[in-house]
């Protein structure tokens, strides 16, 4: 299946919904508890009981402004909350409070990586239409075993959780660009601490609009909307499948019908959920329960001055200030957790490239093997810096230190006492090392001869033999010195 549309140009726009990281809901003081039993984190406002009124969560507003500024939007001093009217059991009011005519923010852009001329790394700018605030709906649970075949369970824990919806312009041209764009959005949301942006937990969801048109055309083709995609892989696969479906239709001389589609990962196909005979009619109108939201210019400027450094800026700083390669810098800014860990460890240790190597090689591998996230690990950056310093100072060997990383990642601990407890201190006792060197030289006369005939490289082999004899605990610098002295005799 081709990623591009072949003879057609692919036109894609995304609507991304992200949960804001607040403790309480957008318009009610109900706590936000992920994974709670049904209706265990609700309040009369979430249930739309008679007489309740919404009161806006000021921190949600702050986070929404921060996200909009980090995505280069213009944040408006005045925005309006509107009612979006539709009927669904998990929407108890019969409307969702959203923003329509005057959203929080408009314009803006997000850069995504792309290949420029000759395959060089470059950036592509995806423009944003708008970012607005809204509340999430509850959840319908279709479980025949509990609800019976004719009923649905409704859980309103999620009802009222604050969201921002980020709407892009149709600037995306392939399935890969769609997921790159979503990754860029996720990175910004995480580095700004606006959202955990975890797709598996439903913090980040997206709808994808796809249409095709002949290359060179200025007009958009009829678009279809892929809904409820909850992983990067599904998004990429679903978009590819939909590009293929529309291409086949158009090649056969048919017309694409405007519709909403679901993607079935099992079959790898998209299927029509609903044909849009008419445009959606949500009968938006300003919510009379909510006064227009007025933001002081000073408030917007204060939030602007507090927007944290994003992944891209950090990666650039790591390259320019610390001399890291672009590739290392990008890997070390894959998440705020990694970037913060690296920065703290490098600050403490003083040699950023050395610390980067340890993180990218050993820490990452341990995390992967333990299926852990750095956030969940008790391993502190100070402990890593200390461990590396002990290697630098010859107090332990690289091999011993590497062997401890998985344990430190899993259960934390103090490197110095672990090394002492496990007998992993480097052997630098001259007597022990001289004995080991003498034995190795005696066991390998042919290599000693090679050395004297000019093959200086055999010294590495001899080093390895000495290290093996000492179970990797010998201080390599000391061994090298003794070897050089003995061979020079």
């Amino acid at each position, binding site marked *: 299946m081709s990623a591009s549309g072949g003879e057609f140009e692919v036109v894609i726009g995304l609507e991304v919904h992200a949960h804001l990281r607040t403790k309480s809901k957008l318009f009610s003081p109900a706590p936000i508890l992920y994974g709670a039993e049904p209706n265990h984190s609700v309040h009369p406002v979430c249930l739309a009981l008679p007489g309740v009124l919404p009161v806006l969560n*000021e921190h949600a507003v702050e986070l929404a402004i921060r996200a909009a500024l980090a995505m280069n939007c213009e944040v408006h001093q005045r925005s309006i909350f509107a009612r*979006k009217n539709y009927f*669904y*059991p998990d929407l108890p009011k019969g409307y969702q409070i959203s923003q329509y005519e005057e959203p929080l923010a408009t314009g803006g852009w997000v850069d995504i990586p792309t290949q420029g001329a000759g395959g060089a790394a470059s950036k592509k700018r995806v423009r944003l239409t708008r970012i607005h605030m809204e509340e999430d709906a509850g959840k319908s649970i279709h479980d025949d075993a509990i609800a019976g075949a004719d009923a649905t369970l*409704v859980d309103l824990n999620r009802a009222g959780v604050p969201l921002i919806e980020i709407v892009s312009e149709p600037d995306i041209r392939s399935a890969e660009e769609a997921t790159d764009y979503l990754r860029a959005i996720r990175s910004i949301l995480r580095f700004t601490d606006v959202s955990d942006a975890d797709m598996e937990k439903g913090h980040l969801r997206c709808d994808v609009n796809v249409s095709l048109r002949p290359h060179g055309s200025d007009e958009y083709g009829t678009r279809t909307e892929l809904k409820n995609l909850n992983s990067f892989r599904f998004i990429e696969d679903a978009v590819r499948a939909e590009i293929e479906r529309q291409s086949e239709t158009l090649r056969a001389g048919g017309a694409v019908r405007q519709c909403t589609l679901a993607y079935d990962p099992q079959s790898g196909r998209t299927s029509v959920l609903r044909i849009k005979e008419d445009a959606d009619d949500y009968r938006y109108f300003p919510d009379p329960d909510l006064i227009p939201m007025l933001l002081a210019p000073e408030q917007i400027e204060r939030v602007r001055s507090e927007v944290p450094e994003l992944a891209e800026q950090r990666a650039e700083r790591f390259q320019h200030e610390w001399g890291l390669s672009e590739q290392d810098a990008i890997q070390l800014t894959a998440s705020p957790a990694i970037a913060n860990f690296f920065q703290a460890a490098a600050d403490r240790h003083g040699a950023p490239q050395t610390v980067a190597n340890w993180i990218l090689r050993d820490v990452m591998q341990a995390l992967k093997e333990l299926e852990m996230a750095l956030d969940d690990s008790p391993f502190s950056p100070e402990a890593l810096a200390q461990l590396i310093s002990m290697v630098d100072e010859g107090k332990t060997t690289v091999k011993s230190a590497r062997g401890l990383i998985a344990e430190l990642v899993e259960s934390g601990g103090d490197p110095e006492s672990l090394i002492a407890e496990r007998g992993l201190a480097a052997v630098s006792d001259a007597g022990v090392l001289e004995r080991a060197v003498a034995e190795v030289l005696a066991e390998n006369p042919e290599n000693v001869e090679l050395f004297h005939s000019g093959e200086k490289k055999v010294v590495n082999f001899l080093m390895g033999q000495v290290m093996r004899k000492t179970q990797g605990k010998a201080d390599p610098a000391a061994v090298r010195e003794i070897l050089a002295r003995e061979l020079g005799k």
Partner: protein
Amino acid sequence: MARISRAEVERVASLARLSLSDEEGDRLVREFESFLGYIDTLQEIDTAGVVPTAHPISLPTPTRPDEPEVAMDPDSAVANAPEAVASAFLVPKVIDTEAEG
């Protein structure tokens, strides 16, 4: 000329999940006509340069701090529901699989 058709009234009713008898439909067409006559009068006012009113009250936006309260008792949350299973509302199965976000 009629400003609103019977079909439009029926469409609005179906969006609101209302089913109308013929008699109710006829009456609503007449009532909408009379509302729209009133709107016509308002339309005569020159509103060029007037910012549309989103709300009659002009106040700073009331907000609250992000401080969660204890959630309500789940049993009382579903107490008024016609049917519930454990702490979840039980509703007739939804055929349309569309969900909004």
